[in-house]
């Protein structure tokens, strides 16, 4: 597995963490941090798509 593939796994887990943090923040009654975590999650998804397009030519192996 190349660094590109591992980075993709990292981005996926980071997205999961962001939305998990959002759920935790809403449950704790902190709307601001919940919204911030959702925004961070969306940002990470957008970054992931950009990253995939940018490194299209590099192998996953």
């Amino acid at each position, binding site marked *: *597995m*190349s*660094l*590109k593939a*591992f*980075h993709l*796994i*990292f981005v996926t*887990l*980071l997205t999961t*963490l962001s939305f*998990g*943090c959002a759920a*935790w923040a809403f449950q*704790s009654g902190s709307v601001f941090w919940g919204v911030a975590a959702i925004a961070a999650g969306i940002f*990470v998804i957008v*970054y992931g798509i950009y*990253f995939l397009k*940018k*490194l299209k030519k*590099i192998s996953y*192996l």
Partner: protein
Amino acid sequence: MDIPYTVESRPDTGLYNAKLGIWLFLASEVMLFGGLFSAYVLLRVGAAPGMWPHGWLNVTLGTINTLLLALSAITTLLAWAACKVRDFTKFRIFHACTILLALSFLTIKSFEYHDKLIHYEIVLNNGTFADGHLVEKSADFDLAKKTGTITLHGRIVDDEKELMDLRTPEARAAKLGEVTVAAADIVKMGNYGPRHNTFTAIYFTMTGLHALHILGGTIVIFYMWAFGGAMWKTDPERFTNRIEVSGLFWHFVDLVWIFLFPVLYLT
């Protein structure tokens, strides 16, 4: 004598030597951290009711550290991509960022450790508990001789369980102030270091081991950043592979933090 497969992949594994080596190493690391996460789960489910701490760690600092490591994963990838397109200047810029981000992470972590090491819980001889951050010890303070006083910024509680969950409305509403205790009134005193309870023990073990990995990775990345120019001139493909391998290690360390942060800070 030339060592084979330092650059090109072995036909049977599809990997060059260093990549095979780092994945074998990372497999052993998964077992190491997996064992510690298992220990955490067992300690937590085995804790007496109401005696597992909540809200003891600073979520804001943990979040900042998560962001720093996420950014460092990106700069690591960009450094490797810069090597792929043969741009050594960009490689150095991106890895300088990685090093700075890693050092920032370690600095914040050391602040968190310091905060725990100056936080004391004192059992008093009337059965109550004084808890708070150390303000000062009198010059003649000696716990063995029972002389002098110690001053904390915190509070006194009747039951130790009140100190466990700091997210309850009562704990949030608690008024903190300076508490001075005479050594003669102290039955037992200790800071929130690894010996304090099973939570601090597993917290210091897991985050300490993780911080050592960050430090080790930073040293390797710094070495290639500072002294990699020679290999870059003679064998750029092999150097690029080394950057990829160090990047794989760095991503693994970042992944461990992605599990550590919610487990220790949010639950």
